[in-house]
């Protein structure tokens, strides 16, 4: 990973849940992978292609041109508006663990020299759940895209609405979707990228409202949870149910794009939709092409 983005603010951060050894066991193929090799491969297993989950910082690092990122609302966070049992402690724990104030990072930067507003949700922060702050940051970012006539790219990774904020969380679906609606009316492109996992309220709002919807291979994408569905229909679901590939086949998304190809694909789409080059193409090659 490139590590050029700002350092965490909230104490020390364990970069990954996996043991920090030299070798990591792939959760899918069980092969032992040399850590350095995994990192060079953008945290994609070189043996089976399993895409490890990335933090929001890692996501932005591999997507944006270096040093071009201006963050919005870095210190904006949810309160505990309902006085919900255990929420304050969970928020503090998530901040400590991720070094972030909230479950999404927003800002603007360039992809292959084309300026865009970008948001990346962080599944490591309370499951990427959307409460007031995530909804507010997505909404503000979208409004800034409209004001600045910039495209919008959102990387989603979320278990859904944050239940500790009750209906305030549910209303973030309405707030963000209304803002996306205005962006569409303004004729600006919105590229939605669904990463593993994108479920619940985030799918039922901005994630499924992209002009173009992309997904990483194998990403879990769905509204209702597998267990609830199995209880309803009283049988087992197939293994590939609610995967990115399943969604592509059912006509729900536009394309499944590997992590190595994602940056270049986004750049092509931004170019197609007329996002102007504001900076020369970065001198260093895209991260995917690095040795």
């Amino acid at each position: 990973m490139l590590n050029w983005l700002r350092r965490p603010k909230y104490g020390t951060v364990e970069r990954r849940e996996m043991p920090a050894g030299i070798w990591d066991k792939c959760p899918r193929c069980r092969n032992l992978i040399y850590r350095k090799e995994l990192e060079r491969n953008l945290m994609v297993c070189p043996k089976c292609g399993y895409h490890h989950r990335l933090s929001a910082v890692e996501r932005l690092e591999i997507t944006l041109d270096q040093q071009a990122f201006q963050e919005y609302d870095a210190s904006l966070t949810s309160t505990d508006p309902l006085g919900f049992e255990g929420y304050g402690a969970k928020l503090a724990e998530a901040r400590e663990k991720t070094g972030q104030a909230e479950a999404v990072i927003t800002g603007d930067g360039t992809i292959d020299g084309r300026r865009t507003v970008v948001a990346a949700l962080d599944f490591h922060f309370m499951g990427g759940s959307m409460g007031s702050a995530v909804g507010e940051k997505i909404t503000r970012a979208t409004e800034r895209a409209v004001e600045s006539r910039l495209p919008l790219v959102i990387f989603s990774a979320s278990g859904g609405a944050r239940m500790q904020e009750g209906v305030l969380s549910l209303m973030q679906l309405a707030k963000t979707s209304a803002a996306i609606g205005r962006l569409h009316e303004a004729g600006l492109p919105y590229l939605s990228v669904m990463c593993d996992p994108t479920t619940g309220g985030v799918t039922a709002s901005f994630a499924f409202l992209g002009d173009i919807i992309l997904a990483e291979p194998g990403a879990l994408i769905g509204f209702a949870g597998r267990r609830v569905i199995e209880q309803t229909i009283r049988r087992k679901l197939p293994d590939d149910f609610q995967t990115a590939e399943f969604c592509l086949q059912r006509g729900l998304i536009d394309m499944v794009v590997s992590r190595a190809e994602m940056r270049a694909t986004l750049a092509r789409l931004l170019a197609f939709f007329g996002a102007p080059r504001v900076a020369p193409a970065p001198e260093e090659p895209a991260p995917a092409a690095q040795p």
Partner: protein
Amino acid sequence: MTQRPPRPAADLDHQLAELEQEIGRLHVRARDHSESRETEIAALEQRAAQLREEIYRNPSPWHIVQLARQAQRPRLVDFLGSLFTDVIEIHGDRLFRDDPALLTALGRFDGQPVVVLGHNRGKDTKENIARNFGMPYPEGYRKALRAMRLAEKFGYPVISFVDTTGAHPGDQAEERGQAEAIARNIQEMSRLKSPILVVVTGEGGSGGALAIAVGDAVLMLQYAVYTVISPEGCAAILWHDASRARDAAAALKLTARDLQDLGIVDEVLPEPLGGGHRDAEAVYRVVRDGLGRHLQALREVPREVLLDRRYAKYRRIGRVVETLAAGGDGDRAEARP
């Protein structure tokens, strides 16, 4: 039904029902046998009144959840029959099928044309199975959007009745894009060029409710609930203990009064003591009155103002703070590599 562990509110309800039956029997006996049972009846009436007071003056959130789920609560078809005239049901999303869990209709309110839609819950098992307990598939939400577009074309207001435990959680619903259908409706309702009035009448179950609940005014019956997740689901996920549903009901702030305090509900429509099922006519009256007032006010608002206000209404919902920088809205922090 299996017994849920702690339901004292429902138990009191049961006691009250028995008392009322007993009073009825005494009345019949007094009539048939020309006996005077007045003192006996008066005593029971007094006891029943106390019980009612006890239960209903200050119902707990969990008790309100029980009231919202009451099987005999007025449903969409009742409101259609009592508040609207010239009702013509319309069917289908033009894409897949007609979803009976979500009803759409043309009708007149106070003589004016409106489009009415809502979750179509039944009153008994047979009705509910036929209508999938008011839990729509994507095609239900797409049918609703079709009806709203129709309203928009002719400049008619939309009146939406919310009463569902949630969107149908099934494999086919997922395959046909349940999330997309809900997201689409939410986005389109936020900018539909017709006034939209929402009434939460029973259960407002998460995204499946919100998919037809974005509007210019959101009214809510006093003993309806509106929640991001069911209390049972919340307790199971957060505390790994579904029996703490009562605590979750309180924590989630799901009652009409709570939601009015949070700026989510515009007006709470009062219900008769003990819940709407005890006096449906009283419920129709408050809903008719509420709809009438809000419709009248909205008719006078120019379209652009209407849409700006609707956007602002949702724009301000939420509670956030800036924890580090002193800067407010619009403050930009430089990237620190």
